[in-house]
């Protein structure tokens, strides 16, 4: 099965092939155009936790989805991976081309919508506030990256948002 992952601003291809009940070969295209391949043997999966043997080492991964991203924790680091089945990536590229010229603002983290400052149809200046979102003790004003007209608004006062949720679209 083929996937498309973002590596910086490039997309690279990843292929997963089952070699047996618990062994998989994963081929990853690198940014320089070469590719690397690993055999991953799943020793154990328990919910979000995976114990995998790679090159004779036991590696422990935590994997969970968060909005559009996949969060992978490995050793002492956290990785946000933007990966989609290749077919889905192609479909999205098309739709984003259709929306060319529009700015789409998505929530960066979960929070509560304190105040919605603009409604669809209203005009906004670049840098003008669109919505205030609070998470725990911090309030954060989301500002418009361009001047234009609000074409979509995905938030309502008092509601909550998750990372990746659409907040505003400005045309």
């Amino acid at each position: 099965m083929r996937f498309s992952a973002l590596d910086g601003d490039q997309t690279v291809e990843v292929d997963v092939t089952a070699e047996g009940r618990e062994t998989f070969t994963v081929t990853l295209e690198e940014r320089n155009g070469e590719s690397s391949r690993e055999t991953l043997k799943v020793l154990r999966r328990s919910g979000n936790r995976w114990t995998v043997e790679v090159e004779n080492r036991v590696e422990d991964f935590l994997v969970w989805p968060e909005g559009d991203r996949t969060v992978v924790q490995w050793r002492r680091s956290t990785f946000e991976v933007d990966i989609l089945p290749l077919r889905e990536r192609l479909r999205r590229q098309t739709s984003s081309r259709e929306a060319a010229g529009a700015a789409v603002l998505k929530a960066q983290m979960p929070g509560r919508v304190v105040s919605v400052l603009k409604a669809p149809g209203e005009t906004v200046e670049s840098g003008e506030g669109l919505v205030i979102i609070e998470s725990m003790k911090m309030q954060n004003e989301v500002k418009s990256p361009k001047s234009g007209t609000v074409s979509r608004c995905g938030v309502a006062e008092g509601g909550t948002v998750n990372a990746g949720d659409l907040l505003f679209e400005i045309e």
Partner: protein
Amino acid sequence: MFKKLLIANRGEIAVRIIRACRDLGVSPVVVYSEADRYSLAVQLADQAHPIGGSTASESYLSVDKIIDAALATGCEALHPGYGFLAEDESLVNACTDAGVVFVGPSAASIESMGDKLRSRSLVAAAGVPVVPGTENPVATLEEAAESSREIGYPIMLKASAGGGGKGMRLVRNEDQLRSAFQMTRGEAKAAFSDSTVYLEKYLERPRHIEVQVLGDRHGNLIHLGERECSIQRRHQKLLEECPSPFVGPEMRRDLGEAALAVARAVDYTNAGTVEFLVDAASSARPAPFYFLEMNTRLQVEHPVTEMVTGLDLAREQIRIAAGEKLSLSQDDVTWRGAAIECRIYAEDSANNFYPSPGGITLLSEPSGPGIRNDSGVCEGYEIPLEYDPLISKLVAHGRDRAEAIQRMRRALDEYKVAGVRTTIPFFHAVLGHERFLGGDLHTHFIDEHGLLSGTLQGSDGRLPRMMAALYHYLEAREGSSPDSTPGRRSRWKDYNRFPNLDSLEGP
């Protein structure tokens, strides 16, 4: 001893107090807000009393609701934990009126230490050094400018009603003072309904070192040595240790005596902490230290003192409140080894410590020799948006600081949390830092060594990217839909399946 005790708090400290109650044979009762209904504290208590809405003001900050809960459940005593109403004398007075024993100092002690300017003069009068500054409020810009010239820039402009890092502003010269003065007064008025401000000399790279004291109602008062809490972010402590790598026996004795003098000045009983700033940059030895403030409650970081002294501070608090005598004298206090605490928050340390609320879909806690994890959560728990996102306090003890650090790093490696981001990677970075290992700490350590930047994000993403692909591959094969966002909620019911009942009972 009391039969029942109300815990007017939430999270890990509520669990901590439940454990102290169990060890004393006291029946623990917790209050809970709507957001805390599924919390670990509710699960572990003998009785759980709902006190309304999710925001703190609707629940844990409401003196009336807390007192009503104590009376409704027949509790003879009330432990405030830390934060919320723990340092609010109105709760103490309400307890007295209701005939409920407050586990903490007197209202008068709390009030004296709550006013920073008043506590400064009390402490100075007791012969304990305070940071050089004004003895009285500065009411006008002219007065402030004159005092600042006397003290010498940089100075710190502080609200008298502030504390804990709130209501203060650094001023480096007279130009800055002009704009800062009215702003600080205005903010103090807005935040504390009191615009009183005063000036203090600003120490450039101080160490934050504090002393734990314990006093009973029979006149016994002891100190349990110091904790160093210099690893801070925006005046919030992140990592604490006992003992301080900077403090030797002589300085420990001096700090201890100063702390006892402060406590005596306000007739202090129960557990309290006297905070000092230590001017380690000064060439003088022993290094000068200055009284900063006194916290009239149990500190978040009390476990490091417990690990090193072998005492149970929460238990001592309840015993003292019940009128018992301290279980040991100053000479009985011994310190063994070293302990470190890391505050594990649901915050993304790779992304400027942004809060990361959400559901904990997997939780595997560290254990083994020297490790203690005071947790407030369990698998399936959803970290509420409304409160401090503390997951647990991970504590490591060792024969010396090096062993405590090694054990902490091992425990951080074992600690697995999925579903939310945590500060675990941040602590790996701190504990691996050469300056930290050398004990060279100060309150700007994190900023100065660039430990807040995005460098904590992993760099070699080859295997993680492969793993993410494998995850989606298997999710697709198992029948869920990876094409759509595999939202966190979809998996939720595996963990807390109760919400399903909704659809079972019909309309």
